[in-house]
């Protein structure tokens, strides 16, 4: 429970949220001064999601942020200078100026996979990270984020389904900020809650108030623990609102004023400040101390970034291939003998269809209707299905036989 967070940890959450926001406010100013080379995306109002979810991860865990997850990067150990230099395309940036924004990562120590701009692709990648971690005997969890819009991609489905089948330790945080660029959720998906999609993958899910950092942290912590225990992927839908346009160029006039007002009142930092005060976890002096520390750190890193050089032009030609510049080594935390012959040779398993895919025991209450053939089963089939009680084929299912009303033909929906 959130109560188990220490006072320090509570203040940590504030520090990261405020750092996230102040950093982005500074970048808006830099953007207006034309010091940001490309586009600038805002996570204003979504800081609680980035910070609360990433805070549930351990150092050994992996993550891949999306464009509005600067807070998650900060929690995982990236510095404001990384973000400043990336946006300013400086040679001192983690990608040396080869890519911008939050498109960077760190395989060795922070365990961050760099995103690409195409949405959804990170999901199977992080599933692969989780599966590899399990194979290597590491008890890691992989986390990634996606927006409401990104859940409409084909690869989102491929990735979630594959992760579910593999029971990969993957936490997928769906940030439902109500807008995919300019398109509202209801014009993207005909369901109210994106978390309902988890049901179709047979995985656990949660819906959380994305502007309540403690609720977000708790949901993420539960999900991470579940994954670490080997119970398969979890999808968390965090309800929130994008308080700025898609990027700086977009005034977002398509967002109704009343909606902005509603969500302004839900500001995750304002709410959390109130909570800290009411819970007696800080006072004005402590808050001022933290804010001053943030400004000091940002001053220093912004100065560093502004004074950093752009990359030398010849860098453009370098680094397409790894020519031995990187050592590739898996970190084994289990004996390799377990996965090398002859010990890995195992019996065939899990390749049968337990109930033969039969029609009889479909749980009709979960379906609006189920069409069942009116033809009598062939002798052979009926023998297979009902003849051998010892096979266990119908165990469990048999109890239901007769208890359920017969399925209706779909064309007769609504009539008895």
């Amino acid at each position, binding site marked *: 429970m959130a109560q188990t967070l220490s006072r320090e940890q509570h203040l940590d959450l504030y520090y990261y949220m405020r750092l996230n926001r102040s950093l982005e406010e500074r970048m808006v100013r830099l953007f207006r001064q034309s010091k940001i080379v490309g586009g600038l995306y805002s996570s204003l109002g979504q800081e609680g999601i980035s910070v609360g979810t990433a805070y549930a991860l351990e150092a050994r865990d992996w993550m891949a942020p999306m464009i509005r997850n600067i807070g998650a990067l900060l929690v995982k150990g990236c510095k404001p200078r990384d973000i400043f230099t990336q946006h300013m395309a400086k040679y001192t940036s983690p990608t040396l100026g080869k890519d911008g924004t939050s498109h960077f990562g760190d395989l060795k120590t922070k365990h961050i996979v760099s995103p690409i701009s195409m949405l959804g692709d990170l999901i199977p990648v992080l599933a*692969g*990270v989780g599966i590899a971690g399990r194979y290597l005997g590491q008890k890691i969890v992989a986390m990634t984020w996606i927006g409401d819009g990104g859940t409409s991609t084909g690869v989102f489905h*491929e990735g979630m389904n594959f992760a579910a089948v593999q029971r990969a330790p993957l936490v997928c945080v769906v940030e439902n900020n109500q807008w995919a660029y300019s398109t509202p959720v209801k014009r993207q998906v005909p369901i109210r809650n994106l978390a309902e999609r988890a049901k179709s993958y047979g995985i656990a899910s949660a819906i959380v108030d994305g502007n309540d950092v403690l609720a977000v942290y708790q949901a993420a912590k539960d999900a991470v623990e579940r994954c670490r225990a080997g119970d398969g992927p979890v999808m968390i839908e965090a309800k929130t609102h994008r308080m700025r346009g898609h990027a700086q160029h977009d005034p977002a006039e398509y967002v109704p004023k009343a909606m902005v007002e509603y969500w302004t009142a839900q500001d995750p930092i304002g709410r959390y400040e109130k909570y800290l005060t009411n819970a007696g976890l800080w006072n004005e002096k402590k808050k001022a101390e933290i804010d001053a520390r943030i400004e000091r750190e940002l001053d220093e890193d912004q100065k560093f970034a502004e004074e950093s050089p752009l990359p030398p032009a010849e860098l453009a030609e370098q*680094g397409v291939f790894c020519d031995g510049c990187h050592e590739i080594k898996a970190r084994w935390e289990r004996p390799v003998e377990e996965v090398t012959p002859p010990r890995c040779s195992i019996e065939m398993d899990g390749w049968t269809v337990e109930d033969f895919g039969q029609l009889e025991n479909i749980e009709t209450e979960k379906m609006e209707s189920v069409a069942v053939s009116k033809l009598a089963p062939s002798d052979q089939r009926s023998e297979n299905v009902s003849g051998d009680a010892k096979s266990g084929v119908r165990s469990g299912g048999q109890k239901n036989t007769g208890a359920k009303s017969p399925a209706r033909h779909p064309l007769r929906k609504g009539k008895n």
Partner: protein
Amino acid sequence: MAAVTMVEAIRQALSEEMERDPAVVLIGEDISVYGGAFKVTEGLLNKFGWERVIDTPISESAIIGAAVGMSYMGLRPVAEMQFIDFLACAFNQMTNFVAKSHYRWGAPVPMVVRGPSGGGVHGGPFHSANPEMYYAHTPGLKVVYPSTPYDAKGLLKSAIRDNNPVLFLEHKFLYRRIKEELPEGEYTVPLGKAIVRREGADLTIISYAAMMHTSLEAAEKLAAEGISAEVIDLRTLMPLDKETILASVKKTSKLLIVHEDTRTGGIAGEIAAMVCENAFEDLDGPIQRVTSLDTPVPYSPPLEERFLPGVPDVMRAARELAQY
């Protein structure tokens, strides 16, 4: 030692690399119990177990994506496409995630994507692809397309040990049609090195994969006519072995390029440009190419036969060039 098919040679490479390095894992559709659509991975499940021979749903983007994630963890995944045509379903993962990873943020992707390619078996428009140039054109990917069992085994081992993503194309027409005795011991064939399959003086024929055999057959018949053709097998398309190509052109002064890929944007155009840039003065005739038609691969046998280059096509072009 008994001669083995290309399928067996590829299986040997996978098996030996998996024994040598526990970081090597396989991922793909129907590769475990079933052993793959062409039985390349047959028997590997029983030897290496479920954790290392991973079956997936029909989700090519998930296969490539998961392999990338595994490679970030220090594994060396080998992903199978049931038919290489279906790699198009994961084109975004290949060209945006995989290919750009090392350049963008210094994250190497030591993975291999392999699968049955090429026509000549009446597979029709969706089971006959030669997709090499989509990927050779994408900076960050290596592309290998062997023509013999020996090379297939040696090149696949090199591909698995390479720190970069390698697209390993296996010509399905060659899978079981040619056999070759392989050495007893360990060997590899380096990526990026072409080989002179036949020495000659009058012209150079550059080819690879199934068309290498067509070119060799044409070269034999041309010899009877008094035309001496040198035949180069590219083996790796990216990186391209410019040295071997240029050395041969300097020797014969005439160049014919033969590939099963369609004409426009095929590697023949790239080689022709490269030779003109580097050895124009050495040329005694126009660079010629024999390729498939600029059409999808048709299904019906007479149509596919018309589509694919044959020995007579190569001989005709070689004769004209030799006489120039």
